[in-house]
């Protein structure tokens, strides 16, 4: 089996486990509803979805037993949901039996055992549906000449327009009673969250009546006589939709990310327009009487506030729980720990922290890699742990937390810590430059270098061609940073800081020569003033005094190919951490603003060091710089020997 399918199966099992948990919980809850006219619709829906999902993914990995069982259970639940079948004691028993078979089938597939016999459960489940669709009682009280069809499903969708004409549910009910008998009435929730009412109605309706009622928001369809549900007792009283609980299932809308991007783009345009408006108003202000001036200012502030709210509202729609990244990890760890003879437990915290959907998708693989690394390189074997006086079971903690516009993901283990000697030896072996007394940032640099891997490629845990190099690149591409701390014998911790969202960000606006550009604030640790005379050229670059040490600096004028200015006082953005700490020299800092990030998509203008462009209100494109890429570029340009990195820490 290929690695690809194997990886996919991991996901399949992980997802099944999750759905099975839902199913076990749901079936327990449903047991209490046996015999009731309508079992809890939320639970029914949840179960239906869980089986539906398993069916889908089982089909993809061609796990036929699982697919068939889920299909049968899904069908029964659909019938219950639609009111076409009643939840009976044999019904719940068949579901429990089916779920048990499903669990066995999935476990057998996971362990490579012979699939269990699922035919008994399938037969039981199939039996339910044939029983629960008996012929309906015909309540034919209609005059001769009407359409002979006896039972109808009439769906009434109320609307303000109808209500204003006096067409309400009560009127519909009266109308139906006059024409026959209401067998069942239930509120239903449409996909868009609106509430409609469904009546199962016995009587005779001719086409003219059906057409006339259609104008009043009623859709009447004749039912095959055996489509209706006999066990449901006639219920002339409308069942009220319980707000909250009942509504929740119908209230999720799947939205294409591209549409949200489009919304975000439009809000971006509004933000820019608002800036232009403010500028114009500032220009005409001297000519406006003070009283009017105040009103204009108030309106302007209100617009700004509402824009911010609107922007945040749309951004919130894009946010999903970090738990989406974490939820598979326990399964990955369990399998991997078993394969490598270790005992590992996974502790998750902060799963409810929210982050942009795009970031979640991009971070899935990097987090997976770090977790696999933690198991295979971090956590020691049972014997080693016992010998070291540690609990035999290792712990991997995954945590997420938000602070301002930054979301931090941490992947920590209580294993042996990074093996500095081994990393240095490996680095020397593959020809990477190693500075003396490397700190953790240097070690992270080394293990994140392309071509660095201390284990064989055949190593199942980490040899998937997805190394630390890609982890770091992905994080940087997303505008984030990664740090590593490690204590020998106590464990390793990776911390990844990511921007909460990508589209709008705070940036520092600076000038270099005649060029204006933006630097995302998330990448700037500090801004310092630099005396131009204090910048000294040393081998391979320039440094300036900083906190009693020497800070490597890069002139942005050089990176941007613009003339070097002759200013006495410069400013530096301090970016990067550890060995990569660098000062980016600029002439002047114009201020801090909220900018709308426009991505640069075309290969003609996609250059290293520029992450996007923004409009500061005058219609001009201002480049947004990518600090990490600039620092990388500057280091490549130099001789590679970085100056005095240790002195800055």
């Amino acid at each position: 089996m290929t690695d690809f399918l194997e990886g996919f199966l991991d996901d399949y099992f992980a997802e099944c486990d999750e759905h099975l948990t839902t199913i076990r919980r749901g079936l327990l809850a449903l047991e209490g509803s046996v015999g009731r006219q309508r079992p809890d619709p939320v639970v029914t829906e949840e179960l239906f979805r869980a089986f539906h999902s398993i069916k889908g993914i089982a089909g993809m990995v061609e796990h036929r037993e699982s697919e068939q069982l889920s299909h049968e259970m899904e069908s029964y639940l659909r019938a219950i949901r639609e009111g076409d079948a009643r939840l009976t004691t044999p019904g719940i028993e068949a579901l429990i039996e089916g779920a048990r078979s499903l669990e066995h089938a999935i476990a057998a597939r996971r362990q490579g055992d012979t699939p269990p016999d699922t035919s008994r459960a399938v037969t039981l489940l199939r039996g339910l549906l044939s029983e629960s669709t008996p012929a309906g009682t015909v309540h034919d009280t209609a005059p001769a000449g009407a359409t002979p069809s006896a039972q109808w499903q009439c769906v009434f969708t109320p609307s303000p327009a109808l209500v204003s004409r006096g067409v309400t549910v009560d009127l519909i009910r009266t109308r139906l009673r006059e024409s026959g008998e209401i067998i069942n009435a239930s509120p239903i929730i449409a996909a868009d969250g609106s509430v409609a009412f469904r009546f199962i109605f016995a009587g005779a309706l001719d086409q003219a009546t059906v057409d006339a009622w259609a104008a009043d928001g009623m859709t009447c369809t004749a039912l095959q006589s055996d489509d209706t549900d006999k066990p449901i007792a006639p219920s002339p009283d409308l069942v009220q939709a319980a707000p909250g609980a009942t509504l929740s299932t119908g209230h999720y809308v799947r939205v294409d990310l591209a549409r949200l991007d489009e919304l975000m783009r439009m809000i971006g345009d509004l933000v820019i327009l608002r800036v232009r408006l403010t500028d114009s108003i500032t220009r005409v202000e001297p000519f406006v009487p003070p009283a009017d001036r105040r009103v204009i200012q108030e309106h302007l502030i209100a617009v700004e506030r509402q824009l911010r709210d609107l922007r945040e509202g749309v951004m919130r729609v894009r946010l999903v729980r970090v738990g989406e990244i974490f939820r598979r990890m326990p399964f990955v760890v369990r399998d991997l720990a078993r394969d490598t003879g270790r005992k590992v437990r996974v502790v998750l915290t902060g799963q409810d922290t929210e982050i942009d959907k795009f970031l979640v998708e991009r971070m899935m693989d990097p987090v997976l890699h770090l977790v696999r690394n933690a198991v295979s390189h971090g956590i020691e074997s049972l014997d080693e742990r016992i010998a070291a006086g540690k609990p035999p079971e290792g712990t991997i903690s995954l945590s997420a937390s938000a602070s301002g516009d930054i979301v931090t993901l941490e992947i920590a283990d209580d294993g042996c810590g990074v093996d500095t000697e081994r990393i240095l030896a490996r680095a020397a072996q593959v020809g990477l430059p190693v500075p003396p007394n490397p700190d953790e940032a240097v070690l992270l640099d080394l293990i994140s270098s392309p071509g660095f891997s201390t284990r064989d490629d055949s190593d199942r845990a980490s040899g998937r061609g997805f190394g630390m190099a890609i982890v770091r690149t992905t994080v940087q591409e997303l505008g984030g940073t990664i740090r590593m701390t490690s204590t020998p014998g106590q464990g390793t911790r990776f911390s990844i800081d990511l921007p909460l969202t990508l589209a709008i960000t705070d940036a520092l606006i600076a000038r270099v020569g005649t060029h204006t550009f933006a630097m995302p604030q998330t990448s700037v640790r500090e801004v310092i003033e630099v005396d131009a005379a204090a910048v000294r050229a040393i081998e391979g670059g320039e440094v300036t005094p900083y906190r009693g040490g020497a800070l490597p600096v890069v002139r942005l004028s050089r990176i941007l190919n613009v003339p070097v200015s002759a200013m006495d006082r410069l400013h530096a953005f301090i970016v990067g951490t550890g060995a990569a700490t660098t000062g980016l020299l600029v002439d002047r800092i114009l201020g801090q603003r909220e900018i709308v990030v426009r991505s640069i998509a075309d290969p003609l203008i996609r250059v290293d060091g520029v992450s996007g462009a923004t409009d500061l209100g005058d219609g001009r494109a201002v480049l947004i710089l990518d600090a990490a890429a600039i620092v990388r570029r500057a280091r490549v340009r130099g001789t590679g020997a970085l100056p005095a990195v240790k002195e800055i820490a």
Partner: protein
Amino acid sequence: MTGERPDHFILFLVAGTTYALPTKDVAHIEMVEQITRVPNAPAFVDGVVFSRGQVVPAVSLRARFGFERVPRDIKSRLLVVQAAGRSIGLLADECREFLSIPPSTVHPPGESLAGIAARYIAGVATIGDRLIVLLNLDELLNTQDPILAA
């Protein structure tokens, strides 16, 4: 150029020569405002501009065709073209004419045009005593160009 019906083209001037692109490839035409230079972009790219909320490269057709750049003036236009999912701005000296060009008037580029420049040319149309060069957009936007992309 095999169709029988005349095709609609937008005509524009670059260094005295009239060029044409099919109307369907041109999303819109703009006055040229500020262009922001992008460091380390290909030599024929003047920089980036915002066009309807998108960041598009501004390609100097003069530079692309090997002519001297001239300062932009009030007649300069940016033709924003769409090809293969990309949006790209082409800087022309002037652009003010639409024309239907019957396929029968279009000929393959002559021998004299062979060479690098010929790759950008889809054909040459003769209408009356006017010569109109029909451009091959795909070649024009190719970043893999061994000579000009450097």
